[in-house]
């Protein structure tokens, strides 16, 4: 780092610390405070938001910040692996600065909304709730700022813990604790791989830093990996086990870390926890799905994107998993009855898009979609929360209808979010989703061989999912807000107050306009330099020398070609033509889906057309029997194996262990009998022991 540290960065730790303080306060004094600790949380997240904005402004001034708070050296100098230093540090660059704003803003809005959803509804246990929110926000903000993988892992785990606590908030009921356990265990399953990956990366590179500090004084693993592969110049020290091909080893490491991502970001096949997680309070769902836990996985891939870019195989897998998840989840969303269930599957589907973008080399596209999705999905969840308040906590869409007139603020904001989600121009979702698909398309076209084919397949999945997205989104909108009320509560819904409408309004506007920060198609068509996000994430030149950000943002130049071997291709009409075709196809599909929904459900008395799907509906409704399959795996495969192992353990291992311990204790009892208590015997035994040693030594050493 050169020069003096900008003032804002000195305060950066406070961004995470403030919610932590609110957590402590809510925990300790929450029951004695008005609103059960909500005000503290609101103040803290508002503070975090302000500081994040300050950091954002400072970063846009051209500085980045990598700072070690504490270093713990484990390997001695000159050791076989070089220095291994474990850090606690901060990394503030455009990516994290942007993410900080998203997280703190949504956390703030969720806190405010919770006043309406929790306090006004007379929930008990509010201090626990707000403490959980505070800790959750703290964990996510710390995760975002982590400058190395180990630290990221720790907060990743903490995020998981918080989700467990909050999903299971209503622990006295049956479903929430079970959902919380499921969320915890399924994501933990992925985290095992992640942990192995972290250890592997540290063992390989001696560091798990994301970014280089200063003049390469401390190495960063993506940079080192690039040097090892010869993608960038320089000598690197890395220990590859067993003389393995570095490329293969890095792919393995990347996929191990990806295990954690797949779990947290609810990608196939570890997505099953997420729909169940709807058992948590709705504001928590908004937080989890929009800004924290689920986003953490995608953010992690983006954070260490320089590393993934070195492995075409890993990228291909990411793209395929993402594309498949996008389609897969979208089809399931089509038949759900509960409003939050639809949103849950749409979340899975949308994160699939982000993964698709990352796999297709669209770093900016993925980040862009992460941002827009954060806003419109938070909006949709909060809107759903508002509806649920109105419906006295009945979530079944078939009991709703006609709410449009009763709650206009909710309706119009929800509509804004829905348009964004469906990807209708000019709402934010259109721009980001279009860019995702565009990246996949052009790289699929241009890249030769299996890689290209893989990307095109993933693109096809994603494209198809656009149609389903449009359909289920508007099916939800029409069923909820249009037509005639289908139940008594829908005729006379419960009112909501400012604390619900406020956040909705903010997010509604954001969902509509935030896409304008990165209108790439418009740029391509008109040549206007309006791809602000691209510029922002690329950062100024000075910054590239400081951090390894260069590795991400030079995506369409060096690393994307050298590492991932991606080449952009175009259709017949050149770049402009390709852009137009891509945008037109995706918009057309979205409109087609929405139109179908309009036809089927925007009627006074909608019926469950999904019944016409017959057996397919059952399959979809039961989530392709995913849960059943996993239960089957658990009961029929794992259990017998476990039982066999248990039998083996009980009889053979335990037998051996017990045998050893019995022998130990028995011989222990024997051994201690030597200690007769008679000091003369001690002297004798001592002398004899000495004599035996002496004679043995004399005999072997030839002393005579």
């Amino acid at each position, binding site marked *: 780092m050169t020069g003096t540290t900008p003032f804002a960065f000195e305060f950066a730790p406070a961004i995470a610390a403030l919610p932590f303080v609110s957590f402590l306060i809510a925990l300790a004094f929450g029951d004695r405070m008005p609103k059960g600790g909500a005000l503290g949380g609101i103040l803290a997240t508002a503070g975090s938001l302000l500081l994040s904005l300050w950091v954002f402004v400072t970063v846009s001034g051209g500085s980045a910040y990598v700072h070690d708070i504490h270093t713990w050296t484990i390997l001695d100098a000159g050791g076989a692996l070089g220095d291994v230093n474990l850090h606690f540090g901060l990394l503030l660059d455009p990516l994290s600065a942007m993410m900080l704003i998203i997280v703190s803003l949504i956390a703030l809005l969720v806190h405010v909304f919770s006043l309406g959803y929790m306090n006004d509804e007379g929930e008990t246990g509010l201090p626990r709730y707000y403490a959980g929110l505070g800790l959750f926000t703290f964990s996510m903000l710390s995760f975002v700022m982590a400058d190395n993988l180990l630290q990221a892992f720790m907060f990743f785990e903490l995020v998981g813990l918080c989700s467990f606590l909050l999903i299971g908030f209503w622990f006295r009921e049956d479903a929430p604790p079970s959902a919380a356990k499921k969320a915890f265990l399924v994501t933990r399953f992925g985290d095992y791989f992640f942990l192995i990956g972290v250890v592997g990366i540290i063992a390989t590179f001696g560091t798990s830093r994301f970014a280089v500090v200063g003049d390469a004084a401390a190495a960063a693993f993506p940079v080192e990996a690039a040097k090892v592969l010869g993608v960038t110049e320089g000598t690197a020290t890395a220990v590859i086990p067993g003389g393995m091909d570095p490329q293969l080893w890095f792919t393995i490491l990347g996929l191990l870390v990806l295990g954690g991502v797949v779990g947290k970001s609810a990608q196939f096949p570890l997505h099953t926890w997420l729909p169940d997680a709807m058992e948590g309070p709705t504001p928590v769902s908004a937080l989890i799905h929009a800004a924290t836990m689920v986003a953490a996985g995608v953010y992690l891939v983006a954070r260490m994107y320089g590393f993934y870019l070195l492995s075409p195989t890993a990228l291909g897998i990411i793209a395929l998993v993402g594309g498949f998840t996008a389609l897969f989840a979208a089809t399931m969303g089509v038949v759900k009855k509960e409003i939050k269930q639809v949103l849950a599957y749409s979340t899975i589907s949308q994160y699939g898009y982000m993964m698709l973008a990352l796999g297709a080399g669209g770093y900016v596209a993925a980040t862009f979609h992460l941002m827009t999705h954060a806003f419109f999905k938070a909006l949709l969840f909060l809107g759903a929360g508002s509806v649920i308040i109105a419906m006295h906590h009945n979530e079944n869409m078939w009991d709703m209808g006609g709410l449009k007139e009763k709650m206009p603020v909710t309706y119009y904001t929800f509509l804004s979010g829905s348009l964004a989600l469906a990807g209708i121009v000019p709402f934010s979702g259109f721009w980001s989703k279009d860019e995702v698909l565009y990246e996949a398309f052009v790289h699929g076209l241009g890249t030769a061989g299996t890689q290209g084919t893989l990307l095109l397949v993933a693109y096809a999945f994603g494209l198809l999912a656009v149609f389903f997205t449009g359909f289920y989104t508007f099916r939800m909108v029409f069923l909820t807000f249009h037509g005639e009320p289908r139940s008594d509560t829908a005729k006379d819904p419960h009112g909501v107050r400012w604390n619900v409408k406020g956040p909705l309004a903010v997010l509604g506007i954001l969902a509509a306009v935030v896409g304008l920060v990165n209108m790439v198609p418009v740029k391509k068509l008109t040549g206007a330099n309006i791809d602000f996000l691209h510029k922002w994430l690329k950062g100024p030149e000075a910054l590239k020398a400081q951090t390894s950000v260069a590795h991400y943002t030079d995506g369409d130049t060096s690393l994307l070609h050298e590492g991932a071997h991606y080449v952009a291709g175009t259709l017949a009409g050149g770049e402009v033509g390709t852009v137009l075709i891509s945008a037109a196809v995706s918009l057309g599909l979205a409109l087609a889906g929405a139109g179908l929904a309009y036809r089927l459900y925007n009627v006074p008395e909608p019926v469950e057309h999904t019944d016409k799907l017959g057996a397919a509906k059952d399959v979809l409704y039961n989530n392709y029997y995913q849960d059943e399959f996993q239960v089957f795996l658990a009961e029929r495969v794992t259990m017998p194996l476990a039982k066999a192992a248990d039998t083996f353990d009980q009889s053979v291992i335990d037998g051996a262990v017990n045998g050893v311990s019995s022998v130990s204790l028995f011989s222990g009892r024997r051994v201690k009998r030597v*200690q*007769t*208590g008679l*000091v*003369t015997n001690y*002297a004798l035994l001592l*002398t004899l022991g000495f004599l035996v040693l002496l004679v043995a030594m004399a005999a072997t050493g030839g002393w005579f």
Partner: protein
Amino acid sequence: MAVPAEYYLVLSAGLFCIGLAGILTRKNALMFLMSVELMLNAANINFVAFSLYWGNLTGQTFALFTMALAAAEVAIGIGIILVLYRNFGDVDVTDAVGMRW
């Protein structure tokens, strides 16, 4: 004519083992102390004899200190034997067998 050094060694070894035998067979704590003195003095014989053998005074000087140490050891020993006597009514080292195994 000087006495060969190995004779001193055998003498000291004998003295050492006599002391050792005393420790191994005597039950009287005072006898125990005396036997320890014998063993320490066996070491002193070596020191003095090899002081002459090597022609330096290190051994002789150290032998003096060993004697002083022996005196200190006896002082503590007598103290412990006194409390032993007060507690067990005897100076028999084989009486104190309250702790074992």
